[in-house]
């Protein structure tokens, strides 16, 4: 299983419908400071429900919706993460699985919707599916910017818990 591609629309600095193709190999994302590199990783974390808005440098979820600063009336952001599931690591009997998430601003807050292959589902369904493919919010496959030595700063108990999860 790997991520085949990501589609973003109005997510953080990705205003226009943007497709990012990914391959099952060692890929780097590069570009000038402030160009949107970390926002691409935030898009993955947002869609898979792996992090709270604070980790994505947002006070509230609606801060993730593109804004040019002068009220352009965009009230929704959507990200799709396309997986190659030919090894059936995701317990769904299809070669291609897409997990997507939408956040929509409303008058008194926001709505957040998750989808699996286009069908609405709950956050816990997403969590259930992903945990069986070893993707959980405290698994060690994501390192945010500036956080590379996090594992050294945590307590010895927290470190041991990582091994608990794996065994």
């Amino acid at each position: 299983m790997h991520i085949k591609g990501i589609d973003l629309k109005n997510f953080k600095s990705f205003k226009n419908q943007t497709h990012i193709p990914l391959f099952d190999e060692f890929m780097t994302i590069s570009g000038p400071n402030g160009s949107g590199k970390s926002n691409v990783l935030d898009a993955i974390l947002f869609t898979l429900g792996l992090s709270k808005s604070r980790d994505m440098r947002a006070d509230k979820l609606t801060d993730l919706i593109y804004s040019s600063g002068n009220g352009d009336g965009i009230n929704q952001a959507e990200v799709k993460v396309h997986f190659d599931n030919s090894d059936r690591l995701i317990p769904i009997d299809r070669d291609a699985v897409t997990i997507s998430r939408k956040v929509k601003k409303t008058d008194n807050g926001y709505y957040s919707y998750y989808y699996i292959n286009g069908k609405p589902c709950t956050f816990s369904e997403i969590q259930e599916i992903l945990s069986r493919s070893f993707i959980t919010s405290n698994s060690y496959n994501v390192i945010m910017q500036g956080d590379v030595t996090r594992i050294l700063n945590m307590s010895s108990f927290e470190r041991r818990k990582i091994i608990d999860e794996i065994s």
Partner: protein
Amino acid sequence: KREVFLSTFDAINANFKEVFRELSDGNGEILLESREKPFEGGLLIQVQPAGKPIQRLEALSGGEKSLTALSFLFAIQRYRPAPFYALDEIDMMLDGVNVEKVAKMIKKLSKSAQFIVVSLREPMIECASSTIGVVMQEKNISTITGIRLNGKNAQAQISA
């Protein structure tokens, strides 16, 4: 439960020793506060960079800390790879030689997992199989500029 835990722990410890040696030429290991009752204690990391005595983790330099943390991550990856890894500027405190060592290791590990690595450092970008460029176009709008397939150097233009 204890048996399963200990066999996982021992396998990851063996990986950690190997990875730390490969990245920094030194000795490293992970230890349990209580092997008898592992769930009552924590997990310690002890490293000895090449030619140095065993160090308290706090006394390590910035680059040494990065290599230690990455060794732990890669030791787990070798035991049970996650499907993908998303790493954001993990090389920022590393000197040129160490960036190259880490990049080579990721290249090897990428045979059993997908690695998506944000980096500004030349040795990391050069070593990757392909690179995605991101730029800020007009007013605060990010676009993807294209994919460089390193070595094959085929520019695949991406339609936004």
